[in-house]
């Protein structure tokens, strides 16, 4: 799989927030075999070392880095944050978040399209965090995005894939665009379902970081991603409304009299 011409060894992407310790984060990334981790920026007081220590840890993981614009509620704020992230992390990849609604952290798709256009013109490779809406997807692609990150469910909700019909339609309309299910995945089975629907990758944070055993959950997601991907490649059967016997009925002793 490729994002903007970069070949990735794994289709699992992990967020780096909410782990109880840096060591647990590193072990979870290793167990999951994630190929990309997401990172962010925060204000840091002079002399504080947290940010510098985190940067050293991220570099040691040996994976691709995808900075986000989490918490940005406007186009200008998101664009400025993206520029700052490009300088700090040394990559032109950006997971673009423009949040429009606080309770659901729902993307402001109008601002998202505008920020995608601006950042693409500024040389960024934009990964927009969006909904499953087809028209928005089309606008994002026209604005320069070559990867889409539709949500499964609201960030951190763990609800899985809320609108399978919509996601299936999105996949079908843009069959060649790399798409990552981002947000809402709570269990390995949700990740497997994303791949069974034909999506290219998943991005997971809370479901691993806040699991009782994050390292084991990282491994579970790795296995689920492999299973879902293999299932999709094997071409699942179509669903039916009525039963269809799986055991051959020909030659059954249906006519035998019972004494």
């Amino acid at each position: 799989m490729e994002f903007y011409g970069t070949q990735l060894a794994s289709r699992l992407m992990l967020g780096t927030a909410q782990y109880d310790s840096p060591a647990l984060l590193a072990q979870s990334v290793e167990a999951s075999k994630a190929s990309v981790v997401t990172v962010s920026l925060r204000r840091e007081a002079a002399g504080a070392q947290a940010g510098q220590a985190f940067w050293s840890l991220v570099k040691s993981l040996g994976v691709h880095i995808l900075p986000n614009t989490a918490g940005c509620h406007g186009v200008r704020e998101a664009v400025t944050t993206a520029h700052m992230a490009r300088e700090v992390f040394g990559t032109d990849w950006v997971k673009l978040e423009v949040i429009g609604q606080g309770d659901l952290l729902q993307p402001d798709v109008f601002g998202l399209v505008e920020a995608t256009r601006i950042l693409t013109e500024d040389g960024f490779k934009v990964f927009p965090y969006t909904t499953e809406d087809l028209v928005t997807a089309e606008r994002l692609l026209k604005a320069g995005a070559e990867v889409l990150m539709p949500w499964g469910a609201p960030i951190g909700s763990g609800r899985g894939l809320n609108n399978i019909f919509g996601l299936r339609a999105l996949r079908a309309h843009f069959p060649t665009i790399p798409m990552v299910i981002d947000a809402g995945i709570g269990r390995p089975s949700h990740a497997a379902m994303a791949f069974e629907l034909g999506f290219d990758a998943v991005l997971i944070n809370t479901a691993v970081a806040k699991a009782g055993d994050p390292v084991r959950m990282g491994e579970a997601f790795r296995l689920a991603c492999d299973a879902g991907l293999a299932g999709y490649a094997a071409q699942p059967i179509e669903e039916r409304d009525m039963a269809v016997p799986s055991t051959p009925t020909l030659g059954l002793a249906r006519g035998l009299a019972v004494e």
Partner: protein
Amino acid sequence: MRILVNDEQREVTNTTLATILNELGYGGARIATALNGTFIPASQRDTVTIMEGASLEVLAPMQGG
């Protein structure tokens, strides 16, 4: 002069962004800066002058999802 650094009032004596960052103790740190909401690349810190009352954002790497 007084400026805002990450929304906190600070008194500084220098005038260029680079010298102010050193004065505040950020020297050598992996940071990015924005002045009054506009990104200032590291390459411009020596030439950008800070005015009284300016708002400076100093951001560093952190965990994110």
